[in-house]
């Protein structure tokens, strides 16, 4: 299959996922709302209703894209490390510590904060990888446990060392101005985060598709045994993929706290967004270049749901149901009705294309 046709078919899949998401939402709203059509209209149109909501949408998409990129790296290697949430909290914490250090008021504040966050996140990503390759501990459970541990550690440091009566007991003081991203459009959340997300997308794409490490990683993900036979040290790939994904998770933590949306550390600042990266990368089929588009699309739905919560009678949490159902539909062969028939008609060609995809 040529690049062009691959692009078309992948785009088709993403559009399909979007249609599924809208259909599922519509069904839920019909059950949940007293005025379903008006509520659905709010859901679909409200993110574009003001400059401020557009800014929130873009900002959310930036964060969702980073979360998706972190998951895509480990999922490409077929490692189900689910520790992005913990990496975000540790990354956010480290970036905060830098912001309140003497460096926080110099021009080094942003790069140093980001670097610290990435190191912290990489460490949290490294632990389950190392535990799996050296000790055989299942990465799913250990990474999930680390999420809870990281959350508690972050809250502990925040409560004891950073929060004060003036700042409110659940947040730190605001960062110095040098430690907060410059906003590209005043009074919106459109800030440096966009550049970071796009640059990360390109870096992840380059690592996965233009380096030997990325090839080995993808081979390990496709068929670990084959990769091992061809001399790839799969345990090294496994640990390095989880560590690199951890660095992206940490970076996302920095984007959270240094972004104009916060500019400080708060309890639970991540608000469950890290896990939504799973949806992003599944719909994008772990392809880095597709992730920003999927993130924009899902970010829009997410923002619509949040506004529906305020302006209509349906709680924002319905987006969780939509999200789960879309994952179910996209991850299964159920997505494309008649796929089996298509495969039979196309014979080996589709089988071959599936192997290369």
């Amino acid at each position, binding site marked *: 299959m040529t690049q062009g046709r691959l692009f078309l078919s992948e785009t088709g899949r993403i559009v399909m996922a979007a249609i599924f998401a809208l259909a599922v939402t519509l069904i839920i709203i019909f059950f*949940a709302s007293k005025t379903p059509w008006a509520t659905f209209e709010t859901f679909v149109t409200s993110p574009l209703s003001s400059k401020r909501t557009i800014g929130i949408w873009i900002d959310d998409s930036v964060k969702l894209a980073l979360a998706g990129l972190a998951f895509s790296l480990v999922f490409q*290697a*077929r*490692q*189900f490390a*689910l520790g992005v949430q913990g990496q975000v909290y540790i990354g956010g914490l480290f970036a905060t510590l830098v912001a309140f250090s003497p460096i926080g008021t110099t021009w080094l504040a942003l790069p140093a904060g980001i670097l610290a966050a990435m190191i912290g996140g990489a460490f949290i990503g490294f*632990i389950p990888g190392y*535990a*799996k*390759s*050296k*000790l*055989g*501990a*299942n990465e*799913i*459970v*250990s990474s*999930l*446990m*680390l999420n*809870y*541990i990281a959350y*508690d*550690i972050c*809250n*502990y440091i925040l*409560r*004891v060392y950073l929060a004060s009566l003036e700042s409110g007991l659940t947040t730190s003081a605001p960062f110095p101005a040098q430690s907060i991203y410059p906003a590209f459009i005043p009074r919106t959340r459109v800030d440096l985060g966009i550049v970071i997300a796009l640059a990360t997308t390109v870096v992840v794409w380059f690592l996965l598709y233009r380096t030997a490490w990325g090839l080995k990683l993808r081979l*390990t*993900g496709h068929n*670990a*045994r084959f*990769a*091992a036979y061809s001399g790839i040290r*799969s*345990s090294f*790939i*496994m640990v390095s993929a989880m560590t690199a994904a951890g660095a992206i998770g940490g970076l996302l933590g920095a984007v959270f706290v240094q972004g104009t949306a916060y500019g400080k550390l708060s309890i639970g600042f991540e608000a*469950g967004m890290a*896990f939504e990266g*799973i*949806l992003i990368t*599944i719909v994008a089929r772990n392809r880095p270049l597709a992730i920003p588009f999927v993130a924009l699309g899902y970010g829009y739905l997410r923002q619509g749901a949040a506004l529906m919560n305020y302006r209509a009678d349906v*709680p924002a*949490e*319905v*987006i*969780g*149901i939509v*999200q*789960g*159902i879309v*994952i*179910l539909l996209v*991850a*299964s*062969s*159920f997505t494309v009705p008649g796929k089996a028939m298509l495969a039979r008609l196309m014979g080996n060609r589709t089988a071959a294309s599936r192997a290369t995809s």
Partner: protein
Amino acid sequence: MNEIIATILSATFVAAVIRTTTPILFASLGGLLSDLVGSLNVALEGIMLIGALTAVIVSAHAPWYIGVLAGLAAGGFLGGVMALFHLRFKADIILVGFAINIIAAGGTVTVLTYATGGDKGTSINIPSKAVPALDLSFLGNIPAIGPFLREVLSGHSYLTWLAAFMVYAIWYFLYRTPEGLRFRAVGEYPPAAEAAGISPNRLRTYGLIASGCLAGLGGAQLAMFSFVGFTRDMTAGRGFIALGAVLLGRRHPIGTMIAAVLFGFFEALSIALPGILKWMPGELIHTIPFVVTVLALMLSSRRRVTA
């Protein structure tokens, strides 16, 4: 330190361990059944959460045992959904499981909002019922050890005793019945089982449904005994800890039970410690069960795996 040891050895603490173990034990037995036939059920957390909410809402309108059965049925239904998507539509079991967790996190809050008329946090204004406690205070009449036994064993939920019985029942099923042998065979080496005329997918479906039912029971115990009523995200990682117990338990019901008791012990400890170690920050005490789970997994596996 002495104070901690004294607490741990007290009858009330042992009773507390039994209470904290029960939901984890149900979920991990469920996880065991699906893991045995080759599908790791990462949705235990979400199924417990949905089971808990279902049990609470139904028990407001029906006797307590109907509430418990509803929790069980909701869990079984979700297990069936997982089997459908994993086996029929060929989705990856981990992704299916996580999709269920995500649906559970959002869906329970959504349903709770409607059931309570706008409260997104707790089901405090729903008159839900509790599972009755089994009164064994007659044990106190036994000389010498009587009072201790009464303290430890009396006053637990009916479901605690059911959980203990399930350990035996599952052991009996797996090691003393032909169907149990088939179950284990599918888990060991599916092609051999298939060659012997056993359909792995049929048993995997049963395994997932049974695991959903048990996790649903765990949720019911959590929301109808451990706490009365539902709170947002009330499972708080117990389903994932249960998954750790499955992996730690060496695919055996007794091993799984021991692991579940171990995690129950540390959960009870994290509840008891704030009263004893006043200097220790609550957040760090709260991490104890999770830290123990990670360490237990690291120390027990001792087996190099390749990707």
